[in-house]
């Protein structure tokens, strides 16, 4: 009898999960999906008054350009729309948007208020689930700033659909280049991330190199040959005022970059033929040596938390990437592939390091994890160099130069997956881009 009870208990325990499972729902696991641009529609924003009519169309076009330019979204053109948005407040006819496979719909209204300010309102809809994504928002700004307001709307759409921060309301400082290769005039220029609104920050009387934005986007560090030797300057973007950083006489300083606190600057300094990395408090001018090796150490870049610095060194015989504490000390090599590595830049998200790689006669822009693993080359050309990160750490902009005496430098951008490689439109040659943070 006791044996029978034991057997019964054992069998019941064995059988229980099967019974429970049979009563439950059907379970399936989806592990394979697709990666394709998400189709969306952005009809012209309606205007509440006649003054806003033209803005409504232009703002919708800039939003579409921003979203489609990421490669993550695909616009369904206005001609294909079945429904027309005539009022911002009227309910959305989801069936009409489903019929053209628009998965997201952006509607908006533009008006000019009594003070002459532009007022932009918008809503985002998830068409297939038939509901609004988040709640509507409103921006108020000057009429001249209409492009920025369009970028802000696009940033919101991007964030609500992807869950990541946007990067459209940002700027890029770069070196504008004109003239033949052997006599090229260079000057600092600044533009919107998409190439619009270019203005120049310096004249072309002396060679300028490697501008770098401050973490707040209000200042730019750059290297100038004004005195005949490379020297670091800091420039205020709004006033275009500038000053040289204090350095010891008889030295050359270059490759500066701000730390995340906006006060600390790391840079390379060459003294007696040897280059090492230094850091300086930009306010007090106090500097400290971070490396002390007979090899060349250059191109330092802070991690976003300010605790580490990645840099380039040829201490092993060829240029490779190393990571050390922000206060100096022992450095850890992180690049081990074939070829030469340079210009490392830490992602604003902290997870990746972008770099330039020269291998087998070609240049690449690539990314690797901060420990050097999962290296992935994104581009390949005659000359690609100088990566800079978009504020959300999803896109990289860099310089691509074509071959030959007529070779021209231009700016390109690529997604960190390697997709969506495209040229950034600039009116002149352009190199050495540095991407600003999102504007306030």
């Amino acid at each position, binding site marked *: *009898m006791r044996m*029978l*009870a034991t*057997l*019964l208990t054992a*069998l*019941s325990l*064995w*059988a229980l999960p*099967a*019974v429970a*499972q*049979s*009563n*439950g*729902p*059907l*379970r*399936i*696991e*989806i*592990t*394979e*999906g*697709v*990666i*394709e*641009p*998400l189709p969306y529609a952005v009809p012209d924003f309606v205007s509440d008054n006649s003054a806003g009519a033209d803005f409504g169309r232009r703002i919708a076009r800039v939003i579409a350009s921003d979203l489609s330019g990421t490669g*993550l*979204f695909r616009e369904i053109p206005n001609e294909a729309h079945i429904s027309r948005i005539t009022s911002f407040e009227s309910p959305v006819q989801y069936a009409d948007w*489903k019929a053209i496979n628009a*998965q997201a719909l952006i509607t908006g209204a533009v008006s000019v208020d009594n003070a002459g300010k532009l007022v932009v309102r918008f809503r985002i809809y*998830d068409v*297939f*689930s038939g509901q609004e*994504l988040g709640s509507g928002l409103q921006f108020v700004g000057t009429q001249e700033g209409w492009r920025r307001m369009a970028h802000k709307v696009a940033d919101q759409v991007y964030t609500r*659909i*992807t*869950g*990541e921060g946007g990067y459209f309301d940002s700027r890029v400082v770069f070196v504008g280049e004109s003239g033949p290769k052997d006599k090229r005039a260079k000057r600092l220029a600044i533009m919107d991330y998409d190439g619009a609104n270019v203005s120049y920050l310096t004249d072309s009387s002396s060679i300028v190199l490697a501008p770098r934005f401050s973490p707040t986007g209000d200042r730019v560090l750059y290297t100038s040959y004004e005195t005949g030797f490379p020297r670091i300057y800091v420039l205020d973007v709004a006033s275009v005022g500038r000053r040289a950083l204090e350095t010891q006489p008889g030295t050359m300083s270059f490759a500066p970059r701000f730390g995340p606190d906006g006060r600390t600057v790391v840079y390379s300094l060459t003294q007696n033929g040897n280059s090492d990395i230094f850091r300086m408090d930009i306010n007090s001018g106090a500097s400290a040596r971070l490396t002390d090796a007979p090899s060349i150490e250059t191109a330092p870049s802070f991690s976003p938390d300010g605790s580490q610095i990645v840099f380039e060194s040829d201490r092993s015989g060829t240029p490779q990437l190393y990571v050390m504490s922000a206060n100096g000390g022992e450095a850890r090599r992180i690049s081990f*592939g*074939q070829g030469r590595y340079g210009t490392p830049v830490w992602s604003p998200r902290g*997870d990746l390091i972008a770099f330039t790689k020269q*291998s*087998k006669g*070609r240049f690449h822009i*690539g990314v690797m994890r901060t420990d050097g693993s999962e*290296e*992935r*080359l*994104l*581009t*390949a*050309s005659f000359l690609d160099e100088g990566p800079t990160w978009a504020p959300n750490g999803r896109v990289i902009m860099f310089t691509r130069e074509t071959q030959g005496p007529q070779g021209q430098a231009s700016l390109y951008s*690529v997604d960190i*997956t*390697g*997709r969506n*490689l495209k040229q950034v439109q600039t009116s002149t040659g352009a190199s050495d881009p540095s991407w600003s943070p999102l504007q306030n």
Partner: protein
Amino acid sequence: MNTGQIISGAGHLALIGWALIGGVFRSDPLPFEVTEVTAISTEEYAALLARDSAPEAVASIDTPEPPAPGDLAPDLSSAADAPPEVTQPEANDSPPPDAAPDVSQMTPPDPAEVTDAPPVLDVPQEDMAAMVPEVSPRPQPRPAPRVAPEAVAPPEPDVRIDDVANPEVAPDQGAEVVEEPAEATALEEAATEIVTEAEKLEQAAPSVSMRPKARPARATEATQEAPKPAPEPTPQKPATDKAAVNDALAAALGGAQQNNDRPSGPPLTSGEKDALRVAVQQCWNVGSLSSDALRTTVVVAVSMGEDGKPNNGSIRMLSASGGGDTAAKQAFEAARRAIIRCGARGFDLPVEKYDSWRDIEMTFNPEKMRIK
């Protein structure tokens, strides 16, 4: 001494004497051929060769006769040949137009046949594994703007892109049953993974490191699922020991007893479940998800109608793991869009097994999509 010994001794002496006198031990040399040769010097040999290869002197040469000064030059006029006669086809002799093809018997082609899908490699026997090189060159993937589990070749330019590939259906005048005319559709071009510019230019053999190993073949997944038992429910009821033993045995052995309270057909086969999974994954677009959302696995519940269409209002997130709240929200929204979009026409599920799929829990695990 007897007679025999005398005879033997005499015989032996006679034999020895014969051998000595008869010349048995005489050794004449064996006969052999002798050929006489003459040694010559290198110069003599060269002279011999030169004499052999020297061409024969030609005694007489026929020289052509020079043309007589009075001969006429050949006519070199370049008048064009007369055009060949071409008979003009009669204008009204045009062939009759081809009859429209009878498409009523046509079956849609198997989509797998028109794809660029990489060849399916047979899994080698276990004892053969040592012979297979661990690092084999991957087939170079072809870049495409869309990344999907199956590679799809670029469709014809004038073919509409759809979720399923269908041939064009034209009305057939002669047919008894007039087919509804339908536009040809094709699957959108797709690659199985993202191909960067650098990868496009590289050799097939990787220079730095291997990519993660290929995902297991679909057939393997199916077989993994197949053994899952789907026994019918057996209520636990107080009973005598014997009855309880019987019940427990029945439940453990796969549910031979049916639960009469709730009529239900047989469970879905693994093939039917696979078809549902494939249908949903075609619409599960993770391209616009953040990297956090791509680390988030969400379990989504949905109630289905008997027509195979999901009840959109019933779609809800049961759980999420691997990411924050925002990431879980984005991941859930992508999953919801997949169910609604691909379920809009109704999933192809057997209605007689409705009870098996009335409620579905789908786990969306993007782990494999992160490395594409």
